[in-house]
């Protein structure tokens, strides 16, 4: 089997990337998805708030996915569902499914869009028993919203990221009692709107600077112990509170799914756990591009779509032999910034470049400064910067013209 382009993963990133490549003149495209249907994680995100930037309306996850699925149905793009990509060597993809068996697929270019997975109990340390009733929030989301299986009646949620908050509301609406959301950090990692409409609307208490210190239960979870933590995130003795509950949801972070990327020998960024890319979304290997949560964890699907369109467009230009290489400079993170995507940039880029980043702590009235060789080449005023909200800046042609070497992006007090 040979294709011009193979896209690994049929979530919003894979779908938008494939469609963009098709619109840029590539006809021989295959999307490989291990699930029974396209749409990725969006199928289980039945709440609304997706697509405000892309479609100027507020859609639910499945609605957002269906828009893209509909678009590709009218094209020559082929899809293989229930198919798992096992390995990638150079430009050969090894995949398997129940109908075709083991396949070796040659492709001129590859786009990686495998998304992310959740950190599980193993990734954090909670001492105590190992009873049933401890789920990751995403697994519970899938059970309830897709498989119609209610996971429990009395619930505590560890982690106040968006998935944890959304699940607090979801379980409450389905008749469960959500007793508390516990957050290790002194601030929530979720969007403010989710704190309002998922917790405050239902009087669910949020305990900041707290963590679960013990899990108790023989076969099914019975109780958990929660303690306040100090500045070094160590539990403070004497602050223990016990909650009786049959269910604990863990919403303790997402990690880009990069087993395949590692097997393929691609460079991984230790800050994001995602792939290293340049402004065209090309990874460290020529002709292999990446987009979406496999690069860094997004909180807005609209940005996933934007990134995917960039990947699709440049994969198309690579296939048509029009891809231009320039001198590569590094994008470094300085004070207050934890990472940037892309991590590298071609100085010959003729178009403006959007750079995504996250801040390390909540900061107010700051400037995001772009510095090259001691010279400030751009700065962007920001009133509120929260770690939960991905930031982005756009470097215009004029900014890019001033770049002569590696650049550093950092925060500076603005008034």
């Amino acid at each position, binding site marked *: 089997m040979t294709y011009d382009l193979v896209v690994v993963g049929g979530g919003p990133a894979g779908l938008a990337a494939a469609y963009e490549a098709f619109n840029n003149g590539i006809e021989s495209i295959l999307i490989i998805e291990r699930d*029974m*249907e396209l749409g990725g994680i969006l*199928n289980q995100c*039945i*709440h*609304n*708030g997706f697509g*405000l930037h892309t479609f100027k309306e*507020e859609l*639910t996850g*499945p*609605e957002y*996915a*269906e828009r893209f699925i509909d678009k590709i149905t009218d094209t020559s793009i082929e899809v293989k569902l229930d198919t798992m990509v096992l390995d990638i060597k150079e430009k050969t993809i090894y995949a398997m499914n129940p109908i075709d068996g083991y396949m070796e697929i040659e492709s001129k270019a590859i786009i990686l869009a495998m998304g992310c997975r959740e950190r599980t109990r193993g990734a954090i340390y909670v001492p105590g028993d190992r009873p049933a009733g401890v789920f990751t929030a995403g697994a519970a989301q899938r059970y*309830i*919203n*897709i*498989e*119609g299986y209610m996971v429990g009646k009395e619930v505590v949620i560890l982690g106040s990221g968006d998935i944890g908050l959304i699940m607090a509301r*979801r379980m409450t*609406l*389905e*008749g469960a009692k959500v007793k508390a959301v516990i957050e290790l950090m002194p601030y929530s990692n979720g*969007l*403010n*709107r989710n*704190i*309002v*409409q998922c917790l405050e*609307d239902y009087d669910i208490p949020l305990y900041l600077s707290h963590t679960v210190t013990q899990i108790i239960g023989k076969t099914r979870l019975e109780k958990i112990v929660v303690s306040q933590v100090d500045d070094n995130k160590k539990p403070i003795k004497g602050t223990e509170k016990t909650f009786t509950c049959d269910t604990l949801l863990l919403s303790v972070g997402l990690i880009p799914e990069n087993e395949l990327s590692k097997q393929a020998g691609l460079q991984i960024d230790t800050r994001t756990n995602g792939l290293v890319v340049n402004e065209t979304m090309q990874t460290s290997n020529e002709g292999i591009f990446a987009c979406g949560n496999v690069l860094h964890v997004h*909180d*807005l699907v609209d940005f996933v779509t934007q990134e995917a369109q960039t990947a699709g467009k440049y994969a198309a230009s690579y296939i048509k032999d029009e891809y231009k290489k320039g001198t590569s400079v590094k994008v470094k993170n300085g004070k207050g910034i934890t990472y940037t995507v892309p991590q590298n940039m071609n100085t010959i880029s003729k178009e403006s470049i959007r750079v995504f980043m996250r801040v390390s702590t909540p900061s107010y009235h700051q400037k995001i400064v772009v510095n090259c060789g001691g010279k400030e080449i751009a700065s962007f005023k920001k009133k509120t910067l929260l770690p939960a*909200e991905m930031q982005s800046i756009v470097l215009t042609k004029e900014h890019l013209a001033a770049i002569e070497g590696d650049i550093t992006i950092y925060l500076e007090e603005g008034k």
Partner: protein
Amino acid sequence: MTAELKKLTCIVCPMGCELQVDEKKKIVTGHTCKRGEIYGIEEVTHPTRVITTTVKLAKSIYPMLPVKTNGAIPKDLNFKCMAILNQVEWRAPVKLGDIIVKDLLGTGIDVVATRTMGLKK
């Protein structure tokens, strides 16, 4: 003396602007767009929410169909809405946008399917 201002977080879009609402004069500040202004007034007069949930679905690959209210309903109807939707049993095939419950609780708002689901093969 300045009037008591109610602080709200706008939930209309993920920007989450911090609003200040003068409840007496019905004046909103802190919004970035018109929708935030409307939200601010409504939140202090008659708060509403869009409900997204699932109903049972027969004859498809999955047993649940995601649905939403196609407009916001008064916040205090949330659980009444859930009670009605818990009784609904739908059958595949269903198309995105199909009306599942018409005029929910006399609000004039319909509950609609948020995805297409074919018959199980």
